[in-house]
């Protein structure tokens, strides 16, 4: 599974990856150049300030002549204003670049997610994908934009400071900066360790969240089993771990900064010592000494920043790897170029070229396996005439869902053909087929928004009247009107404001509005109250009218009324026929039916 391979950082620089990323960066070339110019300006001014101090000391204080001080003040004020403008623009540009990059990558990622096949979704959890699309993309955008800021600023400040110092007195410069290489090495070492230790903290923290979640969700179980103390002990071990790792991370940073301060002060001390001697020997001026002390102190900030960037870079690269891997995944099921030529893509369909669908379906010697060597379906053949309704019956894992998935072309047969209206469905686009198939799930999925939006999902250009009509057809109108805002009532995230039965009715209305020729229905097993069940049964019958339909059936009434019943076991069709015929056979279907009949009867008596 892709989630297991996940790494949070990567060691070596992957140039191919960054080249790949470059195409996202390219549109912002101008902004990036502007940002670099602004940052160099900002770093440059930071270099100039100590020179200003030096000038002031040497030319005003030492000489005592103040006639040009106000000019000096004016220039200083100008520099301050310029620097403030620089600050404004670098935040502005960096923020823009960060957000635009994230926006673009998210957009590309989402588009790719719409194209990827179900085999990808089977292997990849929604949580994993969410993390790629949110935190990874954000980190990537932020690192690229802001490390550019720090890099340019730090680079300019260091190079500028170095030049200024070398220019003023190269010997003193070399002496004062003697500690810099050591500091650089130490900084990189520590920054990596600090980052690594905070990574552990974050991981432990998410385990604590998990433990709270379990503690709360499982509280009833805990209570009935009297396991409070054991749970608390386990939880305490976890918070203890958190304590240890957080303190360790904090200690790392608390060691690091003092070391930087102390080592930095050696530089200052050297400047004071040798610079001071220079002043006494009158080889350098007071102003130069003061400027040197400023430069040396200012030198250590950028070193910090650069070390941090190097450490963060590894994280960003790991994020980039995961995001790019997702965007670069090729869908397993793709339309052929000539098909796209005629039918268009998912995003730009050419409806004019689409043939009308009639609804004849043929499975021809279809074999299928999700994993190589584990056949789920073997040499399956089936002919369905338009308008016919087929009930699929069998245990979980028997292959019922596979048949339906193949029909919808969520997967393609490994061997054999599936023909729609006599034509191999691979010769038409996925969108063509899927737009003509209605697929109603046992656990109905609604999107946040109003009820009206959700029904209209079936046909985006439907009028309000059509929406209401569809709702009336499946008996959903009444309960919708009873709600405070009627069709404009919000359904909540995932439809959480509605009951399961209500969600089901809405999903039926949605499917009816789409008016597909072929309908696939995965019937719910969950028990709902009798009244709702009757309503749903009625709605299902409405839904099936005049369409070719495949039903993964659980309710006896649905099964009974199907034109044909297929009993599936271990990927094979073991019995086939209508209810009457199969009952007469007295085989698997007969047993299944009588067992379930008994349970349904018992339940229905209990429910009164």
């Amino acid at each position, binding site marked *: 599974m892709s989630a297991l391979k996940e790494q949070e950082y990567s060691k070596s620089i992957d140039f191919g990856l960054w080249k790949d990323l470059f195409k996202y960066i390219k549109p912002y070339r101008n902004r990036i150049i502007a940002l670099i110019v602004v940052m160099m300006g900002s770093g440059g001014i930071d270099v100039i300030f100590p020179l200003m101090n030096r000038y002031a000391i040497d030319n005003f*204080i030492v000489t005592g002549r103040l006639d040009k001080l106000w000019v000096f*003040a004016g220039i*200083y004020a100008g520099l301050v204003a310029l620097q403030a403008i620089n600050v404004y623009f670098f935040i502005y540009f960096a923020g823009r670049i960060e957000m635009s990059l994230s926006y673009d990558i998210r957009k590309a990622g989402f588009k790719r997610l719409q194209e990827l096949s179900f085999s990808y979704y089977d292997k990849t959890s929604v949580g994993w994908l969410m993390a790629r699309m949110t935190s990874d993309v954000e980190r990537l955008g932020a690192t690229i934009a802001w490390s550019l800021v720090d890099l340019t600023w730090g680079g300019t400040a260091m190079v500028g400071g170095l030049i200024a110092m070398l220019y003023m007195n190269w010997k003193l410069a070399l002496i004062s900066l003697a500690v810099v290489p050591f500091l650089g090495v130490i900084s990189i070492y520590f920054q990596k360790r600090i980052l690594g230790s905070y990574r552990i903290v974050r991981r432990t923290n998410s385990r604590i969240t998990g433990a709270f979640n379990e503690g709360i969700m499982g509280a009833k179980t805990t209570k*009935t089993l009297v396991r409070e103390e054991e749970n608390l002990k386990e939880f305490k071990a976890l918070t203890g771990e958190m304590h240890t790792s957080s303190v360790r991370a904090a200690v790392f940073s608390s060691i690091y900064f003092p070391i930087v301060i102390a080592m930095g002060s050696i530089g200052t001390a050297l400047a004071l010592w040798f610079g001071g001697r220079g002043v006494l020997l009158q080889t350098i001026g007071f102003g130069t000494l003061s400027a040197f002390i400023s430069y040396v102190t200012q030198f250590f900030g950028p070193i910090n920043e650069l070390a941090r960037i190097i450490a963060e870079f590894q994280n960003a690269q790991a994020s980039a790897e995961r995001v790019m891997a997702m965007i670069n995944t090729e869908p397993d099921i793709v339309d052929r170029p000539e098909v796209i030529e005629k039918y268009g893509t998912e995003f730009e369909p050419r409806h004019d070229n689409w043939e009308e669908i009639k609804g004849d379906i043929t499975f021809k010697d279809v074999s299928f396996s999700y994993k190589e060597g584990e056949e789920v379906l073997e040499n399956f053949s089936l002919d369905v005439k338009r308008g016919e309704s087929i009930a699929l019956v069998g245990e979980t894992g028997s292959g019922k869902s596979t048949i339906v998935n193949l029909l919808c072309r969520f997967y393609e047969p490994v061997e054999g053909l599936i023909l729609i209206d006599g034509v191999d469905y691979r010769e038409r686009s996925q969108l063509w087929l899927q737009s003509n198939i209605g697929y109603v799930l046992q656990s109905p999925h609604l999107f946040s928004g109003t009820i009206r939006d959700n029904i209209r999902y079936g046909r985006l250009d439907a009028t309000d009247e059509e929406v209401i009509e569809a709702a009336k057809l499946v008996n959903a109108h009444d309960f919708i009107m009873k709600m405070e805002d009627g069709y404009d009532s919000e359904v909540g995230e995932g439809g959480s404001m509605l009951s399961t039965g209500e969600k089901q009715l809405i999903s039926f209305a949605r499917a009816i509005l789409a008016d597909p020729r072929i309908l696939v229905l995965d019937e719910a097993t969950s028990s709902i109250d009798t009244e709702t069940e009757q309503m749903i049964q009625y709605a299902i019958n409405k839904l099936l009218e005049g369409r070719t339909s495949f039903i993964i059936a659980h309710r006896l009434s649905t099964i009974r009324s199907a034109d044909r019943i297929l009993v599936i076991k271990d990927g094979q069709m073991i019995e086939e026929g209508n209810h009457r015929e199969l009952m007469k056979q007295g085989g698997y279907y007969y047993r299944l039916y009588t067992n379930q009949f008994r349970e349904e009867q018992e339940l229905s008596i*209990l429910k009164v």
Partner: protein
Amino acid sequence: MEDKNWGYLWKVSKGNRMLYVGAIISMALTAVLSLLPPLVISITVDSIIGDEPFTASPIVVSMIHRLGGKSVLAQNLWICGLALVILNIFIGLFNFTRGKWSAQAAEGIARNIRNNLYDHLQRLPYDEHVKAETGDLIQRCTSDVETTRRFLAMQLVEMGRAIVLLAASLYFMLSLSVKMTFVSIAVIPIIFLFSFIFFSKIKKAFKEADEAEGRLSTVLQENLTGIRVVRAFGRQAYEARKFDEKNTEYTNLWYRLNTIMALYWSSSDLLAMGQIGAVLVLGVYWAALGEITLGTLMAFMSYEWMLLWPVRQLGRILSDMGRTQVSLGRIKEILEKPLEDMNEDGLTPPMDGDIEFRNVYFEYEQGKPVLKDVSFKVKGGQTVAILGSTGSGKSSLVHLLQGLYDYNKGSVTIGGVELRDIDKRYLRRQVGIVLQEPFLFSKTIKENIALAKLDASDKEIYKAASIAAVHDVIKEFERGYDTTVGERGVTLSGGQKQRVAMARTLILDSSILIFDDSLSAVDTETDNAIRQALSEHSKGVTTFIISHRITTISQADIILVMEDGRIVQSGTHEELLSQEGMYRRIWSIQNALEEELEKNLALS
């Protein structure tokens, strides 16, 4: 209210207070010491390299004289450099102890809060958990604790540092030059107020951006979980448009926020650098006139740099403190909920005796009784089956037996001892219950079965699993009993979960067993097998079974039929068959089944 929230923090900080004191002392020492290096530089420049008389405090001057005075030091400037380094090493040292101790204290307190919360949540009455809003509780236990921790770990110390730094540098500055001090702090109140007001105001913009982000991830999440619906309706292009809309909205809000931030930092920098410029120009002016020394000017420049950042931070932290207080309040709300009374000094009688309900009334909400005048008697070791529709009170009845709820009127006795007088912990250990919708922990299957009996041997575990007819299923998993359950492992079906939960209760060898419709997702044949194994294993165990399967129920010693909180029929299978009522109606289906089937056949 306000003070009480901080009061809780004070209470929970117990055991970590000394660490905090240490951290605060270190912090103060750091702050004060970090004012000294500029002094060293200024004295060196002024009086050792330059010709100014010593203006520093007498202690420093005497120290300089002891070291050999100006001339020796001027010849050996390395001593001044060394002093600088030594000072910085001390600063570093105290910086380190401050960092370490404050982290230890903050993390220690956070740990206490987390443990308190977890412990408290577990020991709330059953009822609270039935009504609990999981999402909200978790939010409080995680982000609110995190807000508090962050406050303790960083903001509190940072705040202290800013104040000490301000006070100490004010003292040093005043001792150097009064008028320079006034120049140096002229803009500081403005900078402070500016950042305080700014960060208070910008919260709304941040909240908006956060909400937009929430909407963006909702669209993403719903798309990913509903990918089948999206494909089934061919809505890829529509979804891409919808996502783009939210993506743009979010991005635009951040653009705006970013522009505001750019404005804030640039104007705040303008103020700060302007302040430094003012110190420089006026300082140069006075230095040139001889009113202050060059060293003083240099010291002031250093102090200015040191002060500006903490002052800006202080404004930000103060504007953030309200949030910490709200978080503390939310945490406290959980901790103030009353705990379940475990009746720890209660009786621990043998539990294999007769069980008697006498005129028991029970209500969750006042005025809405769910059990009305329930009376029945069971001999120790008998099996009781309860039949009834949803909401008839059958679950409530068995929940009373585990002490999960307390009855309002009447009496329940086990072996003659009133249920209410029994130690609840003991009671629950002796009464095993399997819930209809069991919760498995994300541990291995083995750990899940041995959940309440940590020292269970493998043999015991296998046996319990075998009785629950789940042993063979587990064996078929790739990692067998070591398979992890839940999100990070395999997903079990509803029936498998129920059977694992059953095994986990069976391993306890309780004196009373309750099955609260706990095999509803198991097929009829397996159900039969389980009951067979159970009746052999649990001889002498008083058993309560809630089920909707009539065959299961018919074998019980006593059958209770419940309707609307009352027992409407009770007796053995034979007795109930001879009466008119629900039981007979259901049972007759069994016999009429063949007939019905025939009729159905004829119809279709």
